[in-house]
């Protein structure tokens, strides 16, 4: 018997219509855990470089974190991975809610989709009974109607249905995959549409077995109460009505304008009423003692929920207020468009119109008011009509297609991926490294364990350090102790901090933890729920294989290097690792390049940002090293970045 996982992948070839139950190798679990780790391995083994993301050979993997479906509170993230059409690199998105755990109780660790259905289909999974059904009658339907109709057809209102909307069907690069209150919103939706899978319904009634039942339950029961009582975990935006942080510091429009004095007490009171007058309740994900989703019923709209910064994106992109977000969000969600990149792309299009790069002729029949324009473009993008066909590719790709100087307006993407709209003054070295090198693409998927700012009061600082159990090594506490100014820490410290931040996200994404109880929340208050000291014990009790901190850390390094190698194979190199030029007003190219070299060296990568043969071999990734050598990406004789002749030319 397998513990904590089912030991089976559901492999569906949509071209042939074949459905296979494939037993997995338990040795892979110990090496890669689950979630994005196993997915990276599958993509590395089975999708050769150069594969068109829109080819039947690409895989779409919906993979459970190792701890999903167990009693471990806050573990429910389903990692959705593929080769992303947006940039040809590994696409990575996370979906909370219920779909992952339900899939596990149906007896599956993950779904691996390949091929392409001849026409629109949906997949139903009820334990071992898996069917591919015709979905042509669902074409063009929104998320909500699709899920409702599928449940009606199955006569099972306990099924969880992950669907794409029209945006996904039309392979918009901004399309998301949604299930209930949760969404896998980054770069993976168009592949589901390309494979012509409208929806996947899952219902499970099998046991998820646990290796050390009493010990695991004791731990989880205690953790549940700790998380519940801990104000430093969960999404503070669900409860804190003071949102001056985002509105005063993030940029409005197409990441363009900072309104440093936007927030005020009157506005806060008005928005508070707007929210509570329309809020039905807050809801949570599977087995989590935090309820981070606000459920809103707005007049003439179906009830919907949002979480986190999703509350701000539409009204900030359009210079409106919260009521506009409440009004447009249920419609945008229903169309299946990601609420981070979509509003940015719309604002970008309106900027191009203003600049004369696009003209009124490109927007036939568009209303004059900004709200009307947002609705107009939303629909054009979801159905790829007219200019919407170009905009549906996202800011970066659309700028390339439009040309005529539009490229200059694409000023907030890294590796073509839309970033949070932040434009700041002075370079922050740790953030430079995270934005430049992150392959989870979004900063919120990389930052989070080390605080963003130093504490100046010595007593408070010591108090913070005393309570800081999450620290994986004393050196971090020491650095924090001597830290005075945000951008001033030794480079060695900056590099190690980025590594730790990344570590926690990679562990979360392979184990199934939500960042809000783990990787993302260490930076605020220092008492996050999960860290490298309690995770190993949890895995030991759930999986029945002894884990300790070092073994777990090695899993992170293995997964991190595997993702890097996969992306290197797809063409990722040093030159692509650049934050937007205007991300900070004051830049220092020479210093940034030195930082990058030091970071690569710390990671055991070459000057070009590729893991060396030694690095890969140390992590049981010898097969990857061999493959990279065979393909001429490595020679096998490379040294790490600082030992490279090119590094020695850089001034110290």
């Amino acid at each position, binding site marked *: 018997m397998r513990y904590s996982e089912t030991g089976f992948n559901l492999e569906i070839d949509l071209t042939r219509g074949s459905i296979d139950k494939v037993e997995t190798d338990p040795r892979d679990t110990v090496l890669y855990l689950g979630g994005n780790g196993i997915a990276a391995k599958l993509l590395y083994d089975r999708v050769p470089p150069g594969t068109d993301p829109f080819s039947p050979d690409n895989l779409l993997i919906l993979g459970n974190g190792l701890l999903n*479906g*167990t*009693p471990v*509170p806050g573990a429910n993230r389903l990692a959705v991975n593929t080769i992303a059409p947006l940039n040809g690199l590994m696409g990575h998105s996370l979906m909370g809610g*219920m779909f992952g755990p339900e899939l596990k*109780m149906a007896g599956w660790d993950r779904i691996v989709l390949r091929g392409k259905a001849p026409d629109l289909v949906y997949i139903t999974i009820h334990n071992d009974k898996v069917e591919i059904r015709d979905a042509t009658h669902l074409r063009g339907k929104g998320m*909500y109607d699709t899920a409702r109709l599928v449940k009606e057809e199955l006569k*099972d*209102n*306990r099924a969880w249905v992950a669907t794409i909307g029209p945006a996904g069907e039309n392979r918009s690069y901004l399309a998301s995959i949604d299930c*209930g*209150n949760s969404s896998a919103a980054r770069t993976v939706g168009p592949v589901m549409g390309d494979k012509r899978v409208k929806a996947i319904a899952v219902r*499970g*009634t*099998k*046991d*998820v*077995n*646990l290796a050390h*039942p*009493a010990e*695991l*339950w*004791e731990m989880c*029961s*205690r953790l*549940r*109460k700790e998380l*519940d009582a801990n104000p430093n975990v969960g999404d503070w935006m669900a409860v804190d009505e003071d949102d001056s942080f985002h509105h005063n510091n993030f940029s409005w429009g197409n990441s363009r304008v900072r309104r440093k004095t936007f927030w005020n007490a009157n506005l806060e009171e008005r928005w508070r009423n707007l929210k509570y007058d329309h809020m*039905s*309740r*807050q*809801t*949570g*994900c*599977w*087995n*989590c*003692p935090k*309820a981070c989703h606000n*459920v809103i*019923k707005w007049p003439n709209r*179906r*009830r919907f*929920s949002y979480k986190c910064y999703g509350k701000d994106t539409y009204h900030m992109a359009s210079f409106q207020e919260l009521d506009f977000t409440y009004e447009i969000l249920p419609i945008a969600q229903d169309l299946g468009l990601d609420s981070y990149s979509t509003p940015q792309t719309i604002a970008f299009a309106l900027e191009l119109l203003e600049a004369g790069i696009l003209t009124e002729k490109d927007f036939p029949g568009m209303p004059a008011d900004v709200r009307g324009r947002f609705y107009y473009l939303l629909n054009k993008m979801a159905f790829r009509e007219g200019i919407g066909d170009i905009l549906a590719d996202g800011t970066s790709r659309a700028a390339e297609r439009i040309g005529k100087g539009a490229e200059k307006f694409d000023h907030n993407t890294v590796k073509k991926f839309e970033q949070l709209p932040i434009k700041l003054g002075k370079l922050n070295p740790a953030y430079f490294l995270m934005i430049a090198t992150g392959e989870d693409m979004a900063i919120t998927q990389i930052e989070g364990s080390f605080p963003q700012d130093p504490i100046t009061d010595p007593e408070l600082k010591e108090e913070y350090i005393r309570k800081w159990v999450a620290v994986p090594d004393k050196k971090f506490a020491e650095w924090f102790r001597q830290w005075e100014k945000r951008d001033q820490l030794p480079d060695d410290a900056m590099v190690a901090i980025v590594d730790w931040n990344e570590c926690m996200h990679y562990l979360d994404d392979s184990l199934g933890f939500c960042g809000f109880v783990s990787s993302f929340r260490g930076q605020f208050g220092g008492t996050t729920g999960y860290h490298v000291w309690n995770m190993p014990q949890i895995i030991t009790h759930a999986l029945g294989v002894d884990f300790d901190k070092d073994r777990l850390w090695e899993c992170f390094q293995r997964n991190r290097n595997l993702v890097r190698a996969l992306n290197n194979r797809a063409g990722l190199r040093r030159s692509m690792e650049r934050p937007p030029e205007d991300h900070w007003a004051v830049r220092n190219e020479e210093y940034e390049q030195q930082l990058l070299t030091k970071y690569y060296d710390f990671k055991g990568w070459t000057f070009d940002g590729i893991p060396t043969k030694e690095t890969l071999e140390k992590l049981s990734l010898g097969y990857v090293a061999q493959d990279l050598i065979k393909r001429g990406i490595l020679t096998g004789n490379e040294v790490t970045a600082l030992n490279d002749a090119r590094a020695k030319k850089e001034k110290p």
Partner: protein
Amino acid sequence: MMPEPRKRSHREGDVTVENDRKKTRIVKDIKVDTKKCVGCRACEIACSAFHATPKFSSVNTARSRIMVVIDEVRDIFVPIRAGDYAMAECNGRNRYVIDGKEYDECTFCPASCPSREAFKDPDSGFPLKCDMCESVPPLEKPMCVDACTFGALIYEEREEVVTEEPKMRGEMEIGLKALIKKYGLKKVMDTIARVSKE
């Protein structure tokens, strides 16, 4: 960690004679505050783990004796506990409108019945029924309540005075009455007289 064993050792149905006449028993209630339910299903998880053999060895919410009816779009979040087995579906069902929201009767119904999959063991099909986590030693509160950090499930014990019930008629008396009703008193008496001589 299970909820602490409770101080008193009452079990449902235990009747305590406090003085010569007054008798009390403990009634266990779970108050459900549907406004506080967030739909996390921690109650289902705790229930299924507690009732697994060995205890806590698996999670399978289909084995749970509590189920959260979730419909975010209609804002319906109702945890219901498994009650008695019903041989047949209802002949008709009510639809309740409460605070402008429409609920069908099944949303509140605890029965394990042929109309739905709920509250049946997924392997054997046998009906499942909430046992309030009766165990030795007894728990302070049922597992689902302990798992609900949102206060949607609140456990309450109350003492109820047992009223002196009229003496129940025995089985034989009921049977005889039925026979008398069917055949008349005289015929029954005659038959008894005859049978007693045989």
